[in-house]
């Protein structure tokens, strides 16, 4: 089913396609530039130029390491929810909220009708795709996660808020497809948290992708999968990108009981650990999934976005992932 879809889209991928989840670390110069921009000491144009330079750097690295599906690395984004809130109408970027310990972030507030006015990610996607020789994924935060990660003062319920986000994100998907994007990732990391809302997740993701001509991936992480599996297979995407290094592989036991029916981007390096895994460890991990899920359904990727690692750690993890994958081809 998915293979056919990929062929129809003109995508010819190798055995065990290699990709990453989406974000890469920002080089120290770019971090500094973002700080200067916030403080008014650097123009938006100058910051954009630096983000473009960092994007080219990461595209070069994906080329050198021979990845099959590229990402732009999100060098121009801050937080994955706030980035879209800042670029849609209807939001106020609220005050600081604690996430744990002494860590804080700004949680957006929906204060008015959510309106998509113009493409948000398309220029960046086009920039990356023009530079790259291989398909670049479009990267969006899903409607359910956007809802769960924002305060809502406008809509009467969580469901209504999620539907409003879905309409906006659908417009962005249409714009990406029109620009030529064929693989679009809609991240829903929040969807495994309230398992009683799985029906809503299915509905609003469906609202985004229904009738749209692209191959859809969804990344989901740090949740209680046993509570949403196999129900989550009904989320209408083609490929789930899931983490495995932190799950003690209990997910594979779930897949033995209820076969995994979609394509699977198998997260095989840990993004929360500074240490780069050995090639043997990564290869053994991938071999385990190959015992359980048919090979033609498997893609290979890290557990999650690499943005919390240093540039060198991220490159080290990408390299070992690529080497282990090639050994298995």
């Amino acid at each position, binding site marked *: 089913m998915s293979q056919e879809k990929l062929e129809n889209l003109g995508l010819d991928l190798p055995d065990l396609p290699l990709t990453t989840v989406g974000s890469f670390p920002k080089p120290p110069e770019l971090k500094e530039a973002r700080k200067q921009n916030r403080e008014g000491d650097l123009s938006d144009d100058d910051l954009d130029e630096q983000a473009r330079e960092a994007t080219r750097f990461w595209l070069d690295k994906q080329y050198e390491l021979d990845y099959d599906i590229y990402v732009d690395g999100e060098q121009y984004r801050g937080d994955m929810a706030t980035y879209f809130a800042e670029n849609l109408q209807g939001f106020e970027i609220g005050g*600081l*909220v604690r996430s744990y310990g*002494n860590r804080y972030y700004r949680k957006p507030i929906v204060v008015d009708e959510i309106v998509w006015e113009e493409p948000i990610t398309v220029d960046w996607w086009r920039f990356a795709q023009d530079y790259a020789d291989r398909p670049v994924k479009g990267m969006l935060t899903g409607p359910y996660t956007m809802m769960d990660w924002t305060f809502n003062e406008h809509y009467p319920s969580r469901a209504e808020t999620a539907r409003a986000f879905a309409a906006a994100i659908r417009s962005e998907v249409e714009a990406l497809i029109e620009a030529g994007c064929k693989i679009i990732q809609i991240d829903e990391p929040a969807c495994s948290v309230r398992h009683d809302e799985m029906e809503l997740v299915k509905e609003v993701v469906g609202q985004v992708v229904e009738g749209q001509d692209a191959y859809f991936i969804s990344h989901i992480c740090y949740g209680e999968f046993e509570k949403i599996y196999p129900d989550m297979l009904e989320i209408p995407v083609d490929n789930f990108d899931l983490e495995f290094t932190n799950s003690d592989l209990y997910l594979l036991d779930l897949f033995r009981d209820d076969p995994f029916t979609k394509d699977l981007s198998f997260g095989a390096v840990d993004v929360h650990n500074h240490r780069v895994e050995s090639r043997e460890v990564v290869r053994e991990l991938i071999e385990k999934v190959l015992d359980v899920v048919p090979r033609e359904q498997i893609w290979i990727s890290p557990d999650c976005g690499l943005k919390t690692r240093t540039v060198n750690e991220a490159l080290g993890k990408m390299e070992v992932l690529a080497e282990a994958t090639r050994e298995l081809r």
Partner: protein
Amino acid sequence: MKIIAENHSMYPRVGESDHAQRLRQAHHDFDHGAIDAEKLKEIEDSYVEELIKEQEDAGLDVVTDGMIRWYDHISHLCGKISGVEVGGLVRYFDTNYLVREGIVRDRVEWDGSMLVDQYKFAAQVASKPVKVILTGPYTLAYFSEIDDSDYASERELAEDYADLLAREAEVLADSGVEYLQIEEPMLLQNPANSSWVLPLNDKIVEAAANTEVRLATYFGDAAPLYDELQETAVDMLLFDFSYGPELFDCIADRGSDKRIGFGLLDGRNTKLATADELAEKIEAVSDNLTDGPHSVSFTCSLDYLPRDRARLKLERLAETRDKLQEVLN
């Protein structure tokens, strides 16, 4: 019928100004060795004083110290209990908020008071009574990983936690604490365990002689446990009313021998309900209640909100109390 305005538990510990960020800065400096523990405590003290004043200025009748010395609901206590170490980050229920779990290495034992000094400081700077919060034994046990074969089950661990929390409650009562709150959000996730959890809570209530004890449940609908909760030894049931209308039906149908804490103002969303609509809900069941005093409060901790919005909620709480006093008397 008498009604008071009562803070729930935590209050945001960061704001927008440098002054409001001094505690965050102090933690940062402390972590980097730039200030010592004494200096950190000095800043914590001044922050507690400021937050108590903020609550009193808003018109609250019962305040807390904002729990700003707590890293979170779990590790603050676990770090002071003999036999437990503080572990890694885990999600706190369905929030986007992480707490550090306890790692149980040995029999858990009371190792000197965990909260008396904090209470004494707060009481000395407050002109209103200061409520003290204890995470309940079941919730504490759920967020503790048992790394010791002595405990065969979560229940056994909870029983020992209950004993040491009872000891703490006794010491707190001796220090003059008038209002004590036991928090058992976990109870709503696994209501089937109420038959053994509620007697553990009662142990703590009995140890806290001459103290008014609240049992706070949140992040779920307490209606299915309503009758059982009425049989406990606590003085007040502080409910989260944001999970469905059934709790109000329970009060309307069956009345309440207990005082009720009306956790009505949403601690997890910035939206601000009007004093009229809030007061109306309580007024509708006022004939089914004792003379009180009952409380109007928040659904949960306010640590999920930005500080400016939390401040607005405090004011709205006091307005709601005033409104009710007007219509009920």
